């Protein structure tokens, strides 16, 4: 009797520290940010002024659009590339461990530094100009990232994001791949499935859980990104997190900054929910 009562409590006791940690450092700041976003700082009353100020700002609509566009282009690229790299490493070709380490290098680089690296490639006195000049393809260096070439700006940001974040997708998918028992693939081969068929009908379905994790993590982080974007494009390609930062640090308005924060939270939540629904296990499905 005593034993079973203790056993019933043990799981709750074990999750308690995590629960407290998340409560103090995640849930509480989240509630506070939400309150900041809807409270008038002088009267303390509930107000939608900050939201109105946010939506009427000149940079609001472009920042929503650009954040979604960058996410919509960069994430599929990251997932596809990350999957290809993970499969390549999993095939254990000669030198695969060096390849793995090289691919993982960007994980250790801060996003601001990543922005700086790519800016130093694309500026007028940058590496790309030097290379093209040395190859004799251009007669004099010129700037690539200019305000009248929004396509170039977007491409540079997507490239930086893909370079910076594909490695983390690869690591998540690689660990997922390693969880899949070899038996499944061997059985598929016994039944005459080619490599493509094995990938499509055996590996990918079993990888669904890892894909879901990678998608959720990458999408949430994509909504938060702003340092490399600001580095490369200034404010010509405004993004939500960048606007939040500028409203806080430049305009000294925590209310509107929080309104942006809440918007990012809602968007991240909506996307996470969608991923969880779309990639949920079918009844009776086996997951690696």
């Amino acid at each position: 009797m005593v034993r079973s009562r203790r056993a019933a409590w043990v799981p709750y006791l074990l999750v308690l520290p995590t629960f407290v940690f998340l409560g103090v450092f995640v849930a509480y700041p989240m509630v506070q940010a939400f309150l900041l976003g809807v409270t008038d700082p002088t009267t303390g009353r509930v107000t939608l002024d900050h939201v109105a100020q946010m939506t009427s700002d000149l940079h609001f609509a472009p920042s929503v659009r650009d954040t979604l566009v960058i996410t919509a282009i960069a994430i599929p690229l990251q997932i596809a590339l990350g999957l290809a790299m993970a499969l390549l490493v999993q095939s254990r070709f000669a030198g695969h461990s060096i390849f793995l380490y090289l691919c993982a290098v960007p994980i250790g680089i801060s996003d601001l530094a990543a922005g700086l690296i790519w800016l130093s490639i694309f500026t007028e006195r940058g590496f790309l100009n030097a290379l093209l000049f040395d190859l004799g393809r251009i007669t004099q260096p010129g700037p690539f990232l200019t305000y009248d070439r929004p396509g170039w700006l977007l491409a540079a940001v997507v490239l930086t994001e893909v370079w910076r974040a594909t490695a983390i997708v690869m690591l998540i998918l690689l660990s997922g791949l390693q969880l899949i028992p070899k038996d499944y693939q061997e059985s598929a081969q016994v039944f005459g499935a080619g490599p493509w068929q094995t990938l499509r009908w055996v590996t990918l379905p079993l990888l669904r859980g890892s894909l879901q994790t990678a998608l959720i993590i990458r999408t949430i982080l994509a909504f938060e990104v702003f340092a490399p974007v600001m580095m490369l494009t200034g404010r010509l390609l405004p993004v939500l997190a960048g606007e939040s930062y500028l409203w806080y640090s430049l305009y000294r308005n925590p209310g509107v900054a929080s309104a942006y924060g809440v918007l990012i939270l809602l968007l991240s939540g909506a996307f996470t929910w969608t991923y969880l629904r779309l990639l949920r296990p079918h009844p009776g499905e086996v997951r690696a």
Partner: protein
Amino acid sequence: MSVRQTGRVTRRQLITRGSVLAGALAASRLGARPAFGAGAPEVVFSTDQLIPLQEQEWARTSLMAGFTKTTGIPVRLIAEGDGPYVDRLVAEAKAGHGTISATGALHGLYPIMLSANLIRDMAPLQKQLDAMKDRTFYRDLLAASHMGGMQAFIPWMQATYVFAAAKSSLQYFPNGRNPMRMTYDDLLQWGQNMQKAAGGQRRLGFPVGPNGLYGRFLHGYAYPSFTGAQVERFKSPDAVAMWQYLRRLWGVTHPSSFTYEFMYEPLLSGEVWVAWDHTARLIPALRQRPDDFVVLPSPAGPRGRSFISVIVGLSIPKTAPDPDGGAKLIEYLTRPSTQLATLQGDGFFPVSPQVAKSATSGWVKVVADGVSAQAGAADAHTALLPIGLGARTAEFVPIYTDAFQLIVIQGKNIQDVLNAQAAKLAALYQAQNAVCPPPDPAITPCKPE
């Protein structure tokens, strides 16, 4: 009290131990501390200046070290951006228990600090400083330090915004014109000439990046030079003519300008030949290659040559744990020898007319020549940063930079944009009941006519 002291000792021991791991440089600095620290509590000095790493290093190892050497009091420097800087002072005031004993900030932040009741009246300390023989202060700086019925700060440093140009670019300056008396038409012509000479590449640069200071060029330089006012004539026909000019100027401005935040970088790389920026953001280029660059005054427009005078002031928070130590530090920072060292180390100009005259060599002279040509021009008039907007001070500049974005980059109708932005300006000044910033007439609340 004894509890707090015990706490301090353990923390110091902890820091000293940590510094062994942190590296030789940090270790040598902290390791030296106990020798000074015996009996002398440290003074914490916070500032929104000295943020770049090199400046912080200089401030710690040279500026503040000099104070510790003469007084035996160690200084802990906290340098952070405007946002966290004010937040820290507010947090200490709210807690009713402070750590900061002296603070130094931009003139424009003081109205915010006054409205939050964070700082002490500096008039008594000013009286003590005035009694010292070697202490002089520019009159206009002292005038700016009085606000809300008290003296909010002791003048510490000053700066302005000027043009820096590669000497090789002067050959493209319009024929027969004097760069030291540049007009806005000269500037445009110069930009066009450089573009021709560089095979179509644009070589004039402005800091239009998100943290760049281009907004200051709009409200403190272009507007008063074209319209005679920063706010009052915001949507006037003169202002429309100014925006038409700015569109043409943008046509000869380097297309990467929207990422520039510190103009010394593109100047040193050769990406731009002529750049406008804050003196502190140009000086690294002059320091590295003093023989290659000149400093030129800002241009004159139809209504004269307007420029901004940036003032940084020192004060003591109400919650200061050691106001005497803070006052000692302020006395040290306003000494003539410290002022000269500050100019050489950080590029900020002395607040004392006597000290200013004594800088006569190297890059310091190059900058001083340009700055005095600007301030001493017959058609010069000073624009001051807006005051009295309180907690909403930071909303002022975006009204101008957003207008730039809409008119120059997006090509919207000038008068429509100006009318809409003028309504925002009027609402801001109405809500805060603030006076127009000089050179505008002193109307309260300020309103674009």
